[in-house]
């Protein structure tokens, strides 16, 4: 894409700018957003689905939806990348739930394995991430781990309960209290 510049900082959110162009049927913007975000979305899909072939299939579906749904993106409600990741997570979790819903999922649980700690520099560059991590630190360790694991891998209540060896309703109470604490901590 050398020599071409799609946007010159219409907002401080280049992904949002691309989404707005895609909403206007701009195919060049669609290619640009694929180039810019497919690796991140592949990371999301792979983490949740735990299987490269399925993640690639899901990636096609996600970008198809990006084209079809870009007109629903509202830059006033959040950042472009947040919207894209929500789209990818929702699709992957829907697949995971449809795959099977009754028993504990070894594949999903293996995919829960925590990755290496994030580089400190990245967190500093992302005030939002730092704030949520600080708030996670105020939670008890196992509750914070359950919450984080649920978000990152789309683990169901059933599997979380099995993983932490607590009854399902206990897990639900854990998450409810933890989410409430997180919300209070993050409120300005």
């Amino acid at each position: 894409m050398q020599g071409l510049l799609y946007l010159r900082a219409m907002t401080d959110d280049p992904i949002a700018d691309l989404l707005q162009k895609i909403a206007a049927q701009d195919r060049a913007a669609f290619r640009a957003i694929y180039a810019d975000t497919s690796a991140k979305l592949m990371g999301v899909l792979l983490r949740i689905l735990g299987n490269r072939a399925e993640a690639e299939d899901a990636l096609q579906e996600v970008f198809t939806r990006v084209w079809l749904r870009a007109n629903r993106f509202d830059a006033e409600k959040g950042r472009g990348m947040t919207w894209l990741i929500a789209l990818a997570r929702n699709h992957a979790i829907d697949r995971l739930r449809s795959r099977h819903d009754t028993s504990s999922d070894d594949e999903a649980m293996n995919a829960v394995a925590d990755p290496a700690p994030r580089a400190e520099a990245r967190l500093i560059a992302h005030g939002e991430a730092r704030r949520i991590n600080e708030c996670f630190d105020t939670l008890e360790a196992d509750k914070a781990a359950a919450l984080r694991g649920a978000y990152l891998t789309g683990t169901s209540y059933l599997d979380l309960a099995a993983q932490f060896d607590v009854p399902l309703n206990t897990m639900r109470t854990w998450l409810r209290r933890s989410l409430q604490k997180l919300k209070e901590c993050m409120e300005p």
Partner: protein
Amino acid sequence: MTRTRQTDTPEDDDFLAAEYVLGVLDLADRSAAEDRLKRDPNFAALVNVWQNRLSGLNDDYAEAPAPNLLPQIEARLFPQPAPAQRRWFGALVGLAFSTIAALGLIAFFALQSPDPSMFASLTAESSGLRFEASIAGNELTLIRSGGAIAAPGKDYELWIIEPDKAPVSLGVLTAERVTIAAPVAKPGYVLAITLEPQGGAPEGKPTGPVVAAGPLQNI
């Protein structure tokens, strides 16, 4: 294991929104939440707030190499149109194409790229601008061969126009020679350049004058 949900209180709705965003719900509860999302704007707003609130966790997703699946995605989204219609050849007359110029361009592009399949010469009598475009393999190359750069505060923007369709932006030109991924194109599609505010047409539709245009041709 669908639970009977008490969703009368704002706290319960907020928790359900958080559970949905977290992804912990089973299939039945998740489907119910998705249905509600579509018809209950208040619930959708709660989900949006949780989506933003938890978005800091997205940094934990490491990037993973993604294959280029664009060809399959685009084939699904943009089925190839019917072959170009002959009436476009009438439009060519107005653009004053000469056989000699065409042959010259073939020689020109033969030196530039391995296997050009289409070319277009973009001209306009009034502007003095001239651009030569070629599509070879997966790339479209555009070279300004005559005329000046856009005035300060303005940009040239490249568009492709399928017969009887709205122009689709291919981006803003920032150099004398640019190479981009080839758009879906057929002989008879028109490449056009408009003069736009800096950064390009704000709403994805051309707003400024056409400063050069020409149809794509098979070589």
